């Protein structure tokens, strides 16, 4: 059984009076430890697919199974628990809380846990590992775009998730910083994390094991780029 199974997923949005089919019968299987890039032009349904895989967005029809869990058979709180334990999100706009320091942003998911957990040491180590040593007490506005992205990655990793979902993580970064971020993802993948990254930049395919091409909400092609390390 595949680690992630997506079966005939459909999603429509109503924009005014017009109904748009954002995803049409999308199906694919993804193995544990793979690095998938979801590519396609703007409006092809990449972000919608990612939000469905992240259980943030419910499909109109179809089924998504992760590690045997039928995602949309779970209630809202079970899905929240699933996200806490299985998923780490990294966004294009970083989505850091401006009133928390870098360290506090990284520690934010620990408050979501039902049990009281102390991961301060791990958070400091993560920031250090991502090259943010000494920036723990800085607020997001005091950090560069690349640094903010690395804080967001540290936050995604603090609960030791199986899967990293990244939505255009280099979209707001210069090419050098973007490359650094992609190297981090590559390294995380080498350590066994399953990564699904949405991008419109085909150069990013070099880092991935698989590529899924979407056009107008339909799967155009699925390519195996290299074997999993």
């Amino acid at each position, binding site marked *: 059984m595949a680690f992630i199974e997506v079966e005939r997923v459909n999603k429509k949005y109503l924009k005014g009076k017009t109904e748009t089919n954002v995803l049409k019968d999308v199906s694919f299987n993804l193995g544990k430890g793979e690095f998938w890039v979801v590519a396609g032009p703007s409006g092809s349904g990449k972000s919608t697919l990612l939000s469905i895989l992240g259980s943030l967005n419910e499909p109109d029809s179809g089924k998504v199974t992760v590690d045997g869990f039928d995602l949309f058979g779970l209630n809202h709180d079970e899905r929240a628990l699933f996200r806490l334990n299985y998923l780490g999100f990294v966004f294009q706009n970083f989505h850091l809380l401006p009133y*928390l320091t870098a360290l506090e942003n990284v520690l*934010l998911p620990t408050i979501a846990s039902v049990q009281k957990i102390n991961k301060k040491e791990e958070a400091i180590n993560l920031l250090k590992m991502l090259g943010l040593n000494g920036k723990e007490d800085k607020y997001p506005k005091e950090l560069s775009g690349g640094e903010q992205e690395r804080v967001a990655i540290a936050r995604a990793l603090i609960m030791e998730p199986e899967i990293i979902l990244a939505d255009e993580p280099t979209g707001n970064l210069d090419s050098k910083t973007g490359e650094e971020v992609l190297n981090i993802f590559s390294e995380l993948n080498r350590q066994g994390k399953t990564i699904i990254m949405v991008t419109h930049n085909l150069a990013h395919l070099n880092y991935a094991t698989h590529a899924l091409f979407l056009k107008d909400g339909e799967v155009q092609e699925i390519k195996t780029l290299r074997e999993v390390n």
Partner: protein
Amino acid sequence: MSIWSVVYRQMKEKRAKVVLMVLSVAITIGGISGVLLTTFNLQKEVADYYDKIGANIVIVPQELTKGSAFDGVPFTGQKQLGIAITLPQKIKTIKNKESISIISPKVVVPTKINNQDGVVLGVIFSEELRAKKWWQIIGRKPQNSEEGLIGENLYEKLGKPQKVKINGKDFVISGVIKKTGSFEDNSLFLDLNTVRSMFKINSYSFIEVSALCSTCPIPEIVRQIKGLDPNIKVLAMADAIYDRKLLVENFNEFGKQMAFGLLALGIGNFLLIAFSLFKEREKELLIFRTLGFNKLKIFNLYSLEILAEILASEIFGSILTLILSFALAKMLGITEAYFFSWQYQAYALLGGLILGGVVSIIPVIKVSRLNEQEILREY
């Protein structure tokens, strides 16, 4: 890191709106409790006034014979028609008996005191002293039927004696009543039954009745007492504080309307600001949801913030109550006013919590139920 530190940082981040929200609730709480406290102060002032003036109803015989009154006070005696001895008991049976606090029957006898002309009043000391709270007594209250009180003028006129002789019987002066500017200054007060038996009197000269409350229906009580005996005249004393009572009533009405207005304004402001704050936090909510916060956690996060804001509002509301009730007391000329009442603060706290709870529950539920999909479209 705790949930509290996130709440604190959230509030610090949005301090302008938080301050506005706190002030809005504080003004509601302070305004309402300040107005209520002022109404209470006004009512208390009127009640205290009634307490001070003592009797507000005087019962006298229907017909007084010529020369049977002294300084407006009717005499009685063996040959005078007085008020029936049974009347005080009957008064205790009228419909509005609950409003009556003191019934003080008296006999007034002009007689020789230490061989000089004077007036003896037979009174029930326990009732009389309750009714005449303004009396300042030098000495002590009478302890038995052989002791009495004397008005300061008469006391001086008689040469400040320790004892007085009436009808051949000695009475000890236990206390002197300082001048009140009325017939009391020239009177000797003795035990009612002693005076009645000494002068063989079977009726009362007059009865003072006190209804010690600001809202008692005095004309109705007068009518009910009149109905008890056709041979009496019942006089309601001029309502010297009518204007004040009218002010209390008007202020009561104004207070109610102001309280409702403030409450509506407070709820409106609170809702507006709360919704605006929560609207701004939709992105924040998306972050919390993606990070795995469940609905209860999000509810707790926002509820704690509301709770902190309401508690802060209570503190500022209390200060505002103090300022407002002080200013209103000054403006309305209330001499003995309370500027702080634990009771009103407790009501305000409870009201604030209920108001905050009810009002905050709506946006909190709205936020915790928001569909990520809707927010995702915006961000």
